[in-house]
């Protein structure tokens, strides 16, 4: 077992760190305050291949591995949680399912421009009545000749209005499973601009305020028959598979936020003087920082382990990484919340002021315990596995 990063990962870390510091950090406060989608940063990320990191080169990607992608989300999130989730939602929730379940034609048409960053991706599963309970889906898709007709709505969709390609889930019928009638769910690829596909409310959020979270509305929205993603009726499996990967992305975002808050707190406690000495000289500060650093390191190990496990899956699809992903997300998200809260406390009154980044980080951290499976869902996944 080796905990040392190899040369390419070290270099990738340097690249992402430099990019995050130069490009994402200067805009982070404005992105948050004005709920501004950082289009300029996203365009630059596209130019440098950040939107297709784990995609093979034959599909326009960078041909790197999952760990490299994870480090990209982590470094971006250290300075801007919004930038981190934009890459995560695009890569894990849109690029990945099309790469995994798409037909050669779908890959050519959608995966290539997504991986090159010419198009941005999003994912629509959640509905007002269907969050953790995906069976609560109301959006319907009916086959009419050569087209599927979609009706319904999706809510809380990251990259909502800014994306070009959407992976959307809808009910396509009913099936009987173990004597129970269940909804048959299927996945579809929907393009922005399709007649009948519009945007509803923009959510005014606590954190990650620049990520363009919208409601998607489908009213007799007709998409070509060939835009069914994977087999009809396999939508639930596709969603669960996709979220397993997504959780690693969000775990990386949470890790980055925690690391960012820790870095700033270390620097601040060295500078801030009270009673004639730096507050880092007080044992309370030292012990708090020690706990924060230890938990961040533990989170990093779980997140990287999940990334490596998913990498194993890439070469051997029989490998499951859902427990590792759930553990990484559960732990990293809770550490992010705890570390950012302590960071604000150690900053004292200044921590409560918008100008100091830890305030934003604390707000950004909260969502990592909620989206792409709440911490409670992660506990369900983990316990179901250990008790089976």
């Amino acid at each position, binding site marked *: 077992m080796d905990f040392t990063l190899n040369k390419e990962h070290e*270099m990738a870390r340097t690249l992402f760190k430099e990019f995050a510091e130069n490009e994402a950090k200067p805009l982070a406060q404005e992105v948050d305050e004005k709920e501004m989608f950082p289009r300029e940063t996203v365009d630059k990320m596209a130019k440098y291949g950040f939107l297709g990191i784990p995609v093979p080169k034959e599909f326009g990607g960078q041909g790197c591995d999952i760990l*490299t992608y994870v480090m990209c989300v982590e470094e971006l999130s250290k300075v801007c949680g919004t930038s981190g989730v934009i890459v995560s939602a695009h890569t894990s929730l849109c690029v990945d399912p099309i790469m995994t379940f798409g037909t050669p034609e779908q890959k050519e048409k959608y995966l290539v421009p997504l991986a090159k960053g010419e198009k941005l991706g999003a994912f629509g599963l959640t509905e007002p009545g269907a969050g953790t309970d995906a069976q609560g889906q109301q959006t319907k898709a009916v086959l009419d000749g050569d087209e599927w007709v979609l009706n319904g709505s999706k809510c809380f969709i990251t990259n909502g209005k800014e994306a070009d390609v959407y992976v959307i889930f809808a009910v396509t019928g009913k099936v009987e499973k173990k004597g129970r009638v269940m909804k048959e769910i299927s996945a579809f690829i929907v393009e922005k601009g399709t007649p009948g596909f519009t945007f509803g409310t923009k959510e005014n959020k606590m954190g990650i305020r620049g990520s363009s979270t919208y409601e998607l509305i489908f009213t007799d929205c007709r998409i070509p028959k060939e835009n069914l993603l994977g087999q009809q009726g396999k939508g639930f499996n596709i969603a669960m598979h996709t979220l397993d990967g997504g959780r690693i992305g969000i775990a990386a975002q949470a890790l980055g936020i925690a690391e960012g808050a820790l870095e700033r707190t270390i620097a601040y406690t060295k500078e801030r003087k009270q009673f004639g000495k730096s507050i880092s000289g007080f044992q309370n500060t030292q012990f708090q920082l020690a706990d924060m650093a230890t938990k961040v390191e533990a989170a990093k190990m779980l997140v990287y382990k999940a990334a490596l496990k998913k990498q194993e899956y890439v070469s051997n699809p029989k490998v499951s990484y859902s427990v590792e992903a759930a553990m990484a997300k559960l732990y990293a998200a809770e550490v992010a919340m705890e570390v950012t809260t302590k960071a604000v406390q150690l900053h004292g009154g200044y921590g409560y002021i918008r100008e100091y980044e830890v305030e934003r980080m604390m707000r950004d951290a909260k969502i990592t315990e909620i989206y792409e499976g709440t911490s409670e869902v992660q506990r369900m996944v983990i316990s179901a596995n250990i008790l089976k």
Partner: protein
Amino acid sequence: MKIIVCIKQVPDTKGGVKFNPDGTLDRAAMLAIMNPDDKAGLEAALRLKDQYGAEVTVLTMGLPKAADALREALAMGADKAVLVTDRVLGGADTWATSTTIAGAIRNLEYDLIITGRQAIDGDTAQVGPQIAEHLQIPVISYAQDLKVEGDKVVVQRQYDDRYHVVEAKMPCLVTALSELNPPRYMTPGGIFDACKAEITTWGRADLKDVDDSNIGLAGSPTKIAKASDKVRKGAGEKIVPDSPSDGVKYIVEKLAEKHVI
């Protein structure tokens, strides 16, 4: 077109320069980076490659660790990399360095050689022009803009308050300023390829037309008496006078006080 870019791995002086007790640089205490002027020169070469199609070879002399800077250049888009490394080349001053690099370049084909103006660890600005001299080709230093027109380069050569437009027929050598252009980032895929790429490694035996008396510490005429960080100018004094004439009066008084006038 074939372009050679000479780069140097240097300690990052952004966070201040650290010295060993004997006055030499404490390289281990500082991060190693690609020299900024060299990086701007590499960017210029890569832009020419994007524009006209060119083969860009990066070359460095240094410890085996200097391969990191070459890999960074490959990850930015350079095509080939050459590392010149040998114990007998250690301790080289600008003369021995330029002799060595010219000896390596004699093995390569080129239309244009680009070097940085100077390295942030030595600030001599001598190696680029010396390489040109060894190779008997024209040199244009301090390039703030670089274009290729047919078989010649057209360079804006920076001056204190203006620039000169200088042309030279290729093959020639240009030394680049970091202001020449902001360097691009590496790409993740470029990094993965760069780590798999083979770096050509040459030693003393591979240098062409180089005499032993001109390499390494023994071949370095420069003797360093003392090394120190640059002396920074003070922040000065800022005043906001009530009127321009008050300001003039104050400045004249200060100058008189210091016996400047």
